[in-house]
C-alpha cells in the first residue's frame, strides 16, 4: 500500500528516520504506518501490539521515534514509556491519544514522554510534529508549564532527592505559563531559540527523574516497615 509519491521523490529509506508504533488495534496501526511512510523523511520500521512486546523488541530496533498509544491491554502506554525511556534514553517517545485528556497527557510526560499527539492530527501537522521531535524539540504548552512549576514547587517543600529547577529554567517556565511562545521567550531573555528548547528538554528530564524518585518512594512506602528496614 505504498503511495507512488514516496517511491518517486523521497530519499532512500536509509536516510529516513526510523519510527516504531505501539498500538493494539491493527487497523489503526496499519493506517498510521501508511501515513508515516507517505512522508518523505520517515519510515515506519516496526509495529508492536502491546507494551510487553515493545519492551522486548524495540531496544534492538533502536528507532528514532516511538509513537505510543496510551491505552494498551495489560501494561499501559504510560508505564511502557517509563520503562522504554530507561532502555532507550535517546529515543523520542510521543504519546498518542484519541481524546484530549490533559490528565493522562501530563502523566505521560511525567513518565518520560517527549510529547503527545492526538490521533486525529492532520497528516501535515503530524509530519511537522515528528520533524520537531527529531530535532530534539521539547514542545510545552502553558498548561503543562504551569503544572510542571507546581510540581517542582511542591517537591521543593518536601526535601528529598528531588531535582530542582535552575533559575533560568523556572524563568522560562513562568513565561511559558503566561502564554509566551518559545520565540518570544527567546527574545525576552536574549537567548537563542535552540537554547530555550534545550532548557525545556532538561526540564522534561528532571520531571521524569523526579517522577521516578516519587514512584520509588511510593513503592517503598507501600511495603511493610519490616521489609523496608534492610534498605
Amino acid at each position, binding site marked *: 500500500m505504498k*503511495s507512488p509519491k514516496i517511491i518517486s521523490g523521497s530519499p532512500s529509506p536509509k536516510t529516513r528516520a526510523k519510527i516504531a508504533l505501539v498500538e493494539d*488495534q491493527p*487497523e*489503526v496501526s496499519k*493506517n*498510521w504506518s*501508511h*501515513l508515516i511512510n*507517505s512522508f518523505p523523511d520517515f519510515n515506519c520500521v516496526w509495529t508492536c501490539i502491546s507494551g510487553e512486546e515493545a519492551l522486548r523488541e524495540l531496544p534492538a530496533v533502536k528507532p528514532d521515534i516511538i509513537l505510543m498509544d496510551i491505552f494498551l491491554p495489560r501494561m499501559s502506554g504510560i508505564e511502557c514509556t517509563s520503562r522504554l525511556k530507561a532502555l532507550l534514553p535517546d529515543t523520542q517517545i510521543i504519546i498518542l491519544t*484519541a*481524546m*484530549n*485528556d*490533559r*490528565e493522562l497527557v501530563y502523566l505521560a510526560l511525567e513518565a518520560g514522554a517527549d510529547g503527545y499527539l*492526538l*490521533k*486525529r492530527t*492532520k*497528516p501535515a501537522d503530524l509530519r511537522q510534529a515528528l520533524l520537531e521531535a527529531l530535532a530534539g524539540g521539547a514542545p510545552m*504548552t*502553558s*498548561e503543562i508549564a*504551569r*503544572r510542571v512549576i507546581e510540581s517542582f514547587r511542591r517537591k521543593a517543600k518536601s526535601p528529598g532527592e528531588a531535582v530542582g529547577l535552575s533559575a533560568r529554567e523556572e524563568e522560562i517556565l513562568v513565561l511559558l*505559563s*503566561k*502564554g*509566551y*511562545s518559545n520565540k*518570544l521567550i527567546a527574545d525576552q531573555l536574549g537567548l537563542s531559540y535552540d537554547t530555550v528548547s534545550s532548557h525545556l528538554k532538561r526540564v522534561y528530564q528532571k520531571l521524569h527523574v523526579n517522577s521516578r524518585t516519587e514512584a520509588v518512594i511510593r513503592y517503598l512506602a507501600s511495603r511493610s516497615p519490616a521489609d523496608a528496614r534492610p534498605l
Partner: protein
Amino acid sequence: MMWFHLQRAFRFSPRKVCGRRWRDHLRLAGLAIILSLSPNSNLINSALAADAPAAGDRDDLSRYHLAKVPPGATNGLGFWIWTDKTFDRQTCRLWKEFDIPTGTKVTSARMRMTVDNGYQFFLDGRELGQGADWYALTEYDLTLLLPPGHHVLAVNAFNDFFQAGLIMDLRVELGDGRTLDIKSDKSWRVVPEYERGWEELKHSRADWLPAQTITGTNRASFWNDPHWPFDFVSVPRFYPLVIPFWQTGWFHLLLASVFGLVFLVCIGLFVQLAIKSKEQHLLHLERARIARDIHDDVGTRLTKLVLQGEVAQGTQPTNSTARQQLDMMCEGLRGVLGAMDEMLWAVNPRHDTLENFIAYICDYAQTFLQNSKIQCLLDVESDLPPVNFDLPLRRSLLLVVKEALNNAAKHSDANQLLLKIHRNGHKLVVIVEDNGRGFDVNQPRRDRNGLPNLFQRMREAGGECKIVTRPGGGCRVEFSISLKRHSARSWFSNRTRPPKQQAHFIDGTASPSDAAETDKSMP
C-alpha cells in the same frame, strides 16, 4: 424504735415536694426488708422488747412518756381495724374515702393515727407520712389539704408479728360550725394485693372487702393499757403542694414533644442529606461512565474513521473531487471530535474543581487564538482555593469566556489578548481584555448580538458581567462569580433565590471613574 418514729415524723417538712417521694419509698421498703428478712432476729426482738414495755417496767415508761401526752389524746379514736386475717410480717392496705361538703371552709382538720407496727399514709395520692409503732400516737394537721370535695385516705400498714391493727381519728371542723369525724371502723376497705396504683385511686372498687374491727381476744392486751398512748407526736402543719410549672405533666409533655420534633427534623435532614449525597454519588458514577463511553467507544471509532479518511485521500489523485470531499469529511470528523473533547471534559466529574476549570479555559483560549494574529497571554493567580466548581457553573462560565474570545477574534482587530483569572474576596474574577479597537456601547452593532447573551448567562449563573470599552480603547470583559455562595448553593440547591440583576454596561467615556478603569493599559 422511738428514734425511728421521730425521724420519720419530722422528716416530712411542710413543703415537701414530689422529688422526695421516691426516696422515702425506698427508705420504707428498706425498713420492711430488714424487718422481714431477719426471722426471729434477736436484735429486733430485743429492740422491740425494749420499746414495747414489758409488764414489769411499763409504769416507769408510762410515767416518763405521759408527760408529753396531752389529756384527751385518745378521745374520739375509732376501733382497731385490720383485715380478716392476721399473721406475722403482713402488709395490709386500708382505704377510706370521704367527702368534705361544699359551700363551707375547713377551719381545722387534725388526724391522730397509729398502726401496730408501722404505716405509710397517703391523702389523695400524696404520701404524707410514715410512722411506728403502736405505743405512740401521731397527730397530723391536714387543715390546708382538705378543700371541699372528695378525698381519699390510704394507709399501707405493716405488721411485724403477733397482733396487728390500725386506729385513727380525723376530726374536721367546718366554718359553719359542723364537725366531721372520720374514724377507723368497718366503713374502711381492704385493698387487695393485686391492685396497682391503689393509693392514687379516687374511688374504691366493689370487690374490696370491708375492714374488720378487732375485738375480744384478738385485741392485744397492751392496747387496753389505761396509760396508752405512751408517746404523742405532733407533726407540723402540711401545706398544699405548689408544683412549679416545670414539674407539671403538660410541661414535660410539651418539652418531650419539642425534643421529639427537633429529633425528627434532624433525622429528616440527615436522611435528606444522605439521599442527596447518594444521588450525587450515583450522578458522579453515571457521568464517569458516560465520559468513559464517549472516550472508549465513540471517540476511538471516530478517530479510526479520520485515519481511514486520510489514508483514502492519499489514494485519490490530487485536486480530484473525491479527494476534496474526503478532506471535508475528515475536517468535519475532527470538528466532531473536538466538540466531544469538550463534552468529555464537561461530563467528567474528575474535572469539577476550580483548578481544572482554569487549566481548561487557559488551554482553550490559547488553542482558539493559536492560528489568529492575536497573541494570547495568561495571568492566573497562584494559590487559588481548592474549591469545587460544579458542572452548571463551569459550563456557564466557559460559554461566556468563549463568547468573549470569539468577539475579540472576530471584531477587535487586536494583536494581544490577556486572559486574567484571580480572586477578589470570595469572588472568582475572569477578565478577557484585548488591545483592539473597542466600540461604542451606545451603538451596538448587529454583529455583536452575543453581548446580551453574556449578561443573560451570568445572571442565570448568579454572577456579574461588566464590559468596559470605548472606540479605540480596547475592550475589557469582566466576569465575576461568588465561590462561596456557590458551595452553599449546592447544599440547598432547591431553595435558591433568584439571582439579582447585576449586569452593568459601562461606557468607557461616560464618567471619570469608568474612564480610569478603561485607561488601564495592556501589559
